[in-house]
């Protein structure tokens, strides 16, 4: 009887220890389709480098301004493994509008559709824009809420903290490949 109680205590301690051992909150993994119908999984993307996950929708002017402002920073840091997910939480009825808007913007990011707002709920996103920087260990290491001009410099500092000093390996000295969907589709 004492042995089973000891085992129970061990189980509880191990569980609590596992839950409390991390300094950072663990990012919830998800799989979503992008505006082109390609499938992306967060854990797969993290194998390449850190991910900046930003929640946006069409009426959110500040979200769009932030995503616009991050374009040159992304282009500069993409060879170092940075990836940005523009997570649209627009309704399914607006999918075509989102697709047209994203194509018009020519954002170089992965633009995912969270039409049921499950990822938004999993991450407890209250205000738009809200963005999370997730390191390659799958931990949320930085949260950015709201956006005003100039914030991108602060965000860039965080990117640099979590990126390697050298560009990540690329075949034959070429620039590192951008994030690819899990199943490259035929043409």
């Amino acid at each position, binding site marked *: 009887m004492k042995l089973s109680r000891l085992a129970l205590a061990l189980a509880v301690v191990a569980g609590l220890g596992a839950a409390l051992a991390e300094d950072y909150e663990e990012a919830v993994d998800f799989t979503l389709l992008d505006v082109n119908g390609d499938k992306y999984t967060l854990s797969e993307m993290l194998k390449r480098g850190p991910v900046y996950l930003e929640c946006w929708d069409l009426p959110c002017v500040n979200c769009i301004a932030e995503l616009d402002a991050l374009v040159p920073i992304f282009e500069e840091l993409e060879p170092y493994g940075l990836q940005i997910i523009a997570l649209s939480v627009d309704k399914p009825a607006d999918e075509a509008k989102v697709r047209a808007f994203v194509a018009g913007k020519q954002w170089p990011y992965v633009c995912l559709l969270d*039409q049921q707002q499950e990822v938004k709920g999993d991450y407890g996103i209250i205000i738009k824009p809200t963005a999370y920087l997730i390191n390659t260990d799958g931990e949320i290491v930085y949260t950015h809420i709201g*956006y005003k001009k100039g914030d991108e410099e602060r965000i860039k500092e965080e990117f640099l903290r979590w990126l390697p000093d050298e560009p990540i390996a690329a075949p034959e000295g070429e620039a590192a490949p951008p994030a690819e969907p899990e199943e490259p589709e035929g043409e």
Partner: protein
Amino acid sequence: MTRRLTVVVLLAAAAVAGAAQLNINGVNRAETWVCFDSVYSTLVEDKLDLNLRYGDLKGQVGFFLFEPSKPWDDVRKPMRLLDYSVAYSPDQLEVLYGRFYQDFGKGLVLRAYKDDDFRHYKSLFGLRGTARLPLGTEVVALSARLRDLFFQENVYKLMNLSDSSDQAMGANLSSRPLRWLGFGGRYVRINRDLDPAPKAFTELFGGDLTTSFGPVELYGEVARRLGTGPGLGGRSTGFGYYANATLAYSGFSVLGQVMDYDSIGFPTGLYHWNDPPTPIKSGVAMNRGVDERGFGFVATATPLSALYLEADYGRLVTHDDTSAGVVEWEGKARYDLEPSWTFEAYFNHLVQNNVELGTYRRAVDKPVVHVNHLVGQHTFAFEGEYAYVDERSTHGDSWDYHEAAAALSYGYGAGLLFTLGYQYVDVVLDKRYNGETSWPIVEAVWSVTERNMLRVRLGAERGGYTCSGGVCRFEAPFKGIKVQLISRI
């Protein structure tokens, strides 16, 4: 022996617990209203959503509490709902039991969704299996009951209270094997208590096709309904389609939509299992999915990096009654003047014929301007709105009136926002605004921490007829204080 087995199981659990990690997060929305009426009626609402993940196991727990005081409704109807779901979800598969949301295609056959901003929670409860297959293919099969929770006139209601035991079984296939080609097929069978015989069920089925070449993408979806008339029996059918075309270049895009829904919205009445798209920007629908056809265009352009232009047009009519319909168009321009100014202006024209109960025609012309100025950590914003309204009732009465609204905001960083607002109408309208003509309001939003946001609203709100995604409601006027605390867990 049993004791040893217990020890082994617990030690194994300890080992597993040490290896995997329990992840819990979620959101709590707590809100209270105090109305400055003769009895200071109150409303308390709390909505807690928790997500739990442990390896391949996922769980959700939702608690909803709604406590109005009596004057909000004839009969006080508090509400306490406990929702949950448990799912086993390895990479290629998910089996879920409990409450969930699910769309099939664009919603012509099945749509269960939540709209937090509109306080509309149309969910399913039951069993759902999802298989994620190669070639961009996904298959979903479900058996579930519906619950349509909707906030209207300051009270939450179950819109399908008398039909909450109805059951649906269905499956959806969606596939995009090639980048330029995608397709889907779906089927839903609905059994209702109203059905006169076991054979008298309703079927909704359909399919879709997507193709793209270069900057053009085309999408088309059809749906068919086969069933029996409620209660009496007899054959009842419906058909609908939705199609859109997108042309998108760098800095320029055009979207065209066309739809025709003839008796696919099911059941007719206060709620539907399916909710097809509407082309109207403000979300107005005619006779949702039951008797409406229309089209719409959206064009966007960014001719300069600082200039964004958008034009929308949407039109909906019914099949036989040419006096009923909605037309809306809007032109919008936004300009960023570096380094710290943003100007936005738009003009909206909306005509509704025989949409609101008792209103034969309502035409609104509304220009709006929005200016935003940033100085260091300080943000200043102004929003001004004017509307000319021409309204006629079904009894021949008519009103011409002007509505105006202005709001001044000051924000400090991302943590504080203060707003002073004022709404005004120049005619006393008992029908629409309870005879009130002005509505001042002050609001403060404080991000207490990264995880907690407090919003306090004091003053009056005009209310009125508002829509979102084709679902409309009448918002009652309000005078009092609202306090809301949103916490990320």
